[in-house]
């Protein structure tokens, strides 16, 4: 994948992007949630 043969390396790529997407989804759901 992406020209990288070792799945242990491209999996790290995918998981990094996936965890970023997880953070974006979390932020979108909880944007107006949260005492001041």
């Amino acid at each position: 994948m992406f020209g990288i043969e070792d799945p242990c390396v491209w999996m790290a790529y995918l998981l990094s992007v996936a965890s970023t997407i997880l953070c974006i989804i979390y932020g979108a759901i909880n944007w107006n949630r949260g005492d001041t």
Partner: protein
Amino acid sequence: MIAQGVGLLEGGLVIAYMAAVGYLGWLGYRRTRTTTDYLIAGRRTHPFVMAISYGATFISTSAIVGFGGVAGMFGMSLLWLVFMNILVGIFIAFVFLGGRTRRMGHALDAHTFPEFLGRRYESRFVQVAAGLVIFLFMPVYAAAVLIGGTEFIVTQVNVDYSVALVGFCVIVAMYVVFGGLKGVMYTDVLQGLIMFVGMVFLLVWTYAKVGGVIDGHRDLTAMADQAFPGFQAMGHGGWTAMPQFGWGDSKYDLWWLVVSTITLGVGIGVLAQPQLAVRFMTVRSGRELNRAVPVGAIFILAMVGVAYTVGAISNLYFHRYEKVIGRLVEVTEVAEVVVRKDRSVEKTIPCKLLHLDTRGEGRIDTTLVAEGVGKAAGIMPRAEIRTLDDGRVEVYPRATSFTRAVVKQNDRWMFNTDSIIPIYVASCLPRWFGLVFLLTLLAAAMSTLSSQFHTLGASICRDVLGQFVPRLTDRSTSSGVLVARIGTVVGIVLAMIIGYYARGGYIVARATAIFFGLCASSFLPAYLGGLFTRWMTRAGAIASMIVGFVASTFWLTFIFAKEATALGVVQQVTGGKTSLLADHPNWPVVDPILVALPLSLLTAVVVSLMTRPARPEHLDRCFGAGGKASKQE
């Protein structure tokens, strides 16, 4: 000094950048003069200001120069640290720890991380011990950030390492000691945005240079046999592959180094970083933390994801595409270039070196390996050299990142991993970008250093000395501020001394991993237990801190070969061995965190179950009656 040898455009860019930073710093300081101003600024502040400010403090020259250089040496296996930085450093830290830390910190009126732990466990010992650990070991991490910035100055401005280090330290000291501790949110954001744009530019430029993403990766995979023989013996399988995994043979050493020290040591250690945990306590509401999560994740992905990818791909650029043109000033026929240097062991490789003036300034600014000498001819790259019509030479170094990063230290030549990214930026990218990137990196270092030294000064003043001289924590007197500033200066001097003597041997990444691992082993069980459980007791917290700290320092001093040999105690005890377990393969490269953190966790649980829990009224104050940490009205 910086303007030397640069054109009008570059000079103008530098001046515009400095003016913008100065103006925003002044604006930020002016707007936080009163509590009301502070709160209004807080209400008007977009959440990404807090997130990028956190990111700019989290990511510094340590990550970009230090770990980027390690990626140049060991390859894309470091991408696992990117995953850990985002999942643990952002998602878990903000979602699970941030809100609780903020609420409990306010309920206990805690202003520092040691004070937070001390008040949660009603223990002066916990506060003083945590403050001492921070005061004694924070300079190690600060030195890592300082060295990262200094290496970049050396490459871009072409000055001596010690001059650059002292100059950088003086600027940092002025910035930190005489104000600049508050009101830097605006400058953090400007620097963060420039870092973001700069890193994206760096990534696009790099892939364009090496023929695109897929072809670049394939070409990098194909040059796996070019890896330095010493790395291949440790399990290096190329820059697009994980090192060999296994146990009981030194060919698995690299896997354990990458996974235990680089990935887990730094990836988990971030949760117990005092200067980052304190940020949660200064946030206005839980909503800000939620909004900071996506911004922080994208920022971290762009910073470390790019740094580690570019670090690995720089091998392909240096090996296939780099062309250096300049006047050949000097040739060293045989130089013993240091590959590895510890207190008692020094390994060198004889090389023929070319010293060039590529900028037309009349002095040497680039040194390349022409070839290995004698037996080293078979393992070192052989440069292709051609003389041009105007008398200058054109050199294709055909090097890897490691063998390209030749620097001089105290009249000795050495391969220096921490110089890989600075040399790559200077060689591959336009000159104007190198200067802007230099200023950006120094700003990134400055934002991290200011919070490190602020934490260090607060620790010695409020958490250690303040516990014995209450006057120091009384806000109506000025002696506390003075002690904090003296502590900060002592910390800066310590960091500078470490920075001077510790250059080489990917010290930036190592020093960062030492501090992160030590914090995790000493503080994490007490911190997590204090946030999430009512049954963690004072005795459990104290015992886990002691066990975590002692196990970490014992492992660093006697087992973990790289640091043990640098400290030198183990050689005296064993009569010259690099580790007590030197005869047992792989153990000497297992990071202390893999041993000390489980021991510390186990101790916290066992001792807490055997001792009396805290007073119910104290726990109610910490958590609120419903079992959840809430602010006491």
